[in-house]
């Protein structure tokens, strides 16, 4: 049976929907908020999206999607090019490794998993940036960004869960034990 053009477009859109939605959230995060200390407590939305989609929909958000997403994040940021690529691939690898343990557990476990993986990611990011600038970045700001990211995880995860259940539920795959 041949697929109609509409179906082909719809299927292809579904394949890139996690990437498109993550990019949308990333762009939202760049909107000026005019709130005191907003420069200090700025969450890393990209980390949340990569962790979430690599955990639940690795088939739609693979290495290539992570790479494209990281290049987008890098081009928007004034941080060194390649830094987000390294960090997002790091989170992707960690999420995929622990996906089978985490994705069947309650949300609190998922959140706890994110808090551990993002902590590692922030430390790696801090080390790489410090090496790049040949001086240690103040740790206070890193911790504030980490706390904001972990605090905001449930909200961003809920939005992603909505996208998953509303548009991609039929495409769900069962993860093999690795």
């Amino acid at each position: 049976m041949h697929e109609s053009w509409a179906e082909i477009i719809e299927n292809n859109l579904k394949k890139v929907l996690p990437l498109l939605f993550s990019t949308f959230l990333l762009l939202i995060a760049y909107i000026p908020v005019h709130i005191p200390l907003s420069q200090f407590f700025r969450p890393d939305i990209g980390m949340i999206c990569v962790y979430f989609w690599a955990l639940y929909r690795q088939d739609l958000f693979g290495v290539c999607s992570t790479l494209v997403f990281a290049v987008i994040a890098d081009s928007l940021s004034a941080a060194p090019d390649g830094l987000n690529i390294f960090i997002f691939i790091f989170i992707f690898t960690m999420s995929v490794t622990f996906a089978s343990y985490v994705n069947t557990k309650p949300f609190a476990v998922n959140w706890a998993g994110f808090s551990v993986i993002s902590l590692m990611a922030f430390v790696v990011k801090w080390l790489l940036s410090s090496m790049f600038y040949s001086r240690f970045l103040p740790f206070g700001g890193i911790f504030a960004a980490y706390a904001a990211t972990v605090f905001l995880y449930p909200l961003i995860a809920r939005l992603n869960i909505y996208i998953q259940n509303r548009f991609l539920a039929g495409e769900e795959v069962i993860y093999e034990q690795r």
Partner: protein
Amino acid sequence: MKRRRVLFIRLSQFRVLLRKALVVLVFLSALLVMMLSKADSRLLNKISNSVSGILNPIVRVLQIPAQIVYAAYDGVRDVVFVYQENKLLKQQNIDLLMLKNQVRTLKMENRLLGRMLHYTPPPEASFVTAKIIAEEGDAFSHSVIAYTRNSDNVKKGQVVLGSESVIGRVDNVNGPYVRILLFTDINSKIPVLVERSRVRGVLSGDNTMVPKLLFTALNADIKEGDIIVTSGVAGVFPVGLPVGVVSKISADAIEVETITDIERLEYVKIVDYGVYDGVLEINNTLEN
């Protein structure tokens, strides 16, 4: 019959291997890109500009609803504080009128002295106004993206002023979109001097809200509350532009607070003092 050992790999195993190899390759490429970024690669800048050229218009559209909410919030706040602000503005107006008279006298005096010394004044500065459409501030970088219709005269390195003082410099121009590196960013180094005592130093950002004043003598005459202005050394910034106020002096560092609230930036002025063109020319000559 003796069984022959056959070494084979299943397709699924091959895919897993390939994926692992791809991940390692991406890790290595990321490190390579970081090294190239340190060397300020033109190719990387081109790629980055192309991607941000697509994304910046989207950000500009996305920030419109947020802008409406802030405008409504500002409206309510203005109404609540109207009495207090009016009182403050009246006092400021009296001070400014006095200052205006002083400035007029000094201007006249300056013109007369200039004529006596055959002094040629520098060319007038020109500026364009730009609207902030995106801000990026975290522990890793501090920058904003501004939109301006008149970006023809905007060049990398030009000075950016907030409502009251210097906030940074132009880092990248991509069509009508300008990336501004704030002076709180770790990459920012501005030659400055203390307005009162004329002590020179370098204001260095460190991705916190309070940049540090470096390269000053231990016994330098610096007090809390001193105003920091640009020194004009290195030719990027003109002399005498206000940058910040000394907020804390400790054994380890001299902290400088920004005069303009960079968390509430809406519009900025990108100023062409014509100073940086000379520096660029020298750089190009040296490169050639």
